[in-house]
């Protein structure tokens, strides 16, 4: 066996070695470049779209909830507490601060939004409508936005940053509006280095109507669901 192999083998010349290395390098470069391009396109195709869809879902959920934001004032709290809410429905809050006494204004921090909303109970003739507490909290470490309502929680993941702010629009400075920004945890285009963003302005129908129609003198009390 050994004698046969040695007789047929003639070794490799320097030119052959250089040409072989060159060809292998070119092939390797083409394959790695192709794989890297495919990974980039996959990431900015399927992954971005999925994350953006989740962000859109989160904004839709927040919009649905916040459109129904309302006060939670019981008959025991009295009408004065109701007036306070209608006069100033927003309050600054610290993260994870709890409602104290009858002061249950809409609480906003950059990463947390807490409010009461009319409960989804269908048509009701109850003179004291049911309300429930809703909380949106963003945890930067896990990249998850958590919605908690009536003991149920739902998580929206894949975010790098979530921010809540409030502002008043020039056309009607009486009504505070929520501004939400969601930044996805994915790089934007290769040359920009910015992650994808989605922003939205959101209102409470109750807050708008109670301020625009102060003459209604809303005196309905509420009960917790």
């Amino acid at each position: 066996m050994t004698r046969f192999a040695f007789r047929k083998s003639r070794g490799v010349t320097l030119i052959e070695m250089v040409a072989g290395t060159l060809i292998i390098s070119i092939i390797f470069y083409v394959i790695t470049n192709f794989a890297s391009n495919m990974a980039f396109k996959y990431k900015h195709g399927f992954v971005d779209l999925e994350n953006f869809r989740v962000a859109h879902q989160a904004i839709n959920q927040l919009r649905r909830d916040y459109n129904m934001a309302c006060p939670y004032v019981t008959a025991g709290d009295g009408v004065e507490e109701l007036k306070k809410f209608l006069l100033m429905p927003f309050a600054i809050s610290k993260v994870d601060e709890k409602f104290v006494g009858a002061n249950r204004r809409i609480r906003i921090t950059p990463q947390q939004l807490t409010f009461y909303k009319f409960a989804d109970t269908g048509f009701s003739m109850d003179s004291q409508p049911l309300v429930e507490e809703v909380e949106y909290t963003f945890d930067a470490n896990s990249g998850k936005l958590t919605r908690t309502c009536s003991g149920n929680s739902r998580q929206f993941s894949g975010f790098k940053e979530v921010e809540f702010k409030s502002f008043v629009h020039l056309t009607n400075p009486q009504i505070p509006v929520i501004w939400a920004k969601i930044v996805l945890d994915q790089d934007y285009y290769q040359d920009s280095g910015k992650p994808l963003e989605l922003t939205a302005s959101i209102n409470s129908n109750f807050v708008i109507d109670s301020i625009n129609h102060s003459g209604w003198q809303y005196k309905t009390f509420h009960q917790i669901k």
Partner: protein
Amino acid sequence: MKISCRINCGTKSMFKLGVSFPEIVVAVAVFAILALPIYQSMHTVQTDTMKSINYFRAMELANEAIEYVRLLPVNKDFKQNAEGFSGSILVEQGDTFEAAKILTGDNPNYKDILESNIQYSNQYNPAYFYRTIEVADLSGADYAGLLKKVIVTVYWDNDVAVNNLHDLSRKTKKVVLASLITDWGAQP
């Protein structure tokens, strides 16, 4: 054992023959032919994703316009004020365009809470979003007088350079949302 047997027996083996240059060229060509459609399809996915993201953003801008219209008291100026929200979300800055700021106001009750500097993301710029808002009265039903119809149309472009922000004739995409606003003052 198996290899040495092959060599000893004089049968052809890869270990013996190696790979010739034409074989490498053919292999690379076959790989390229197979890879090209995959690459193209991934590129299409990436492009379509950007289009979908623009669509999502257009929907949010339309929803946002409806939210702004809801802020307005329904009075004699309602139509004019609502239609005043129409326009581009870009502003001209010399020869270029930059993201517009939301027109924020001031309310002393909330001076510690309110944000006064809110600007759209620059990522919205390449799509050149433009909103139009129309307000129409309803007719027909008994309750028609109590309602106003608000129609928001958001126009945008995918990957097209635009020189005139207000030229809607060349916009390639649009989404339309409509909503009803109650005019409580009109009830008998």
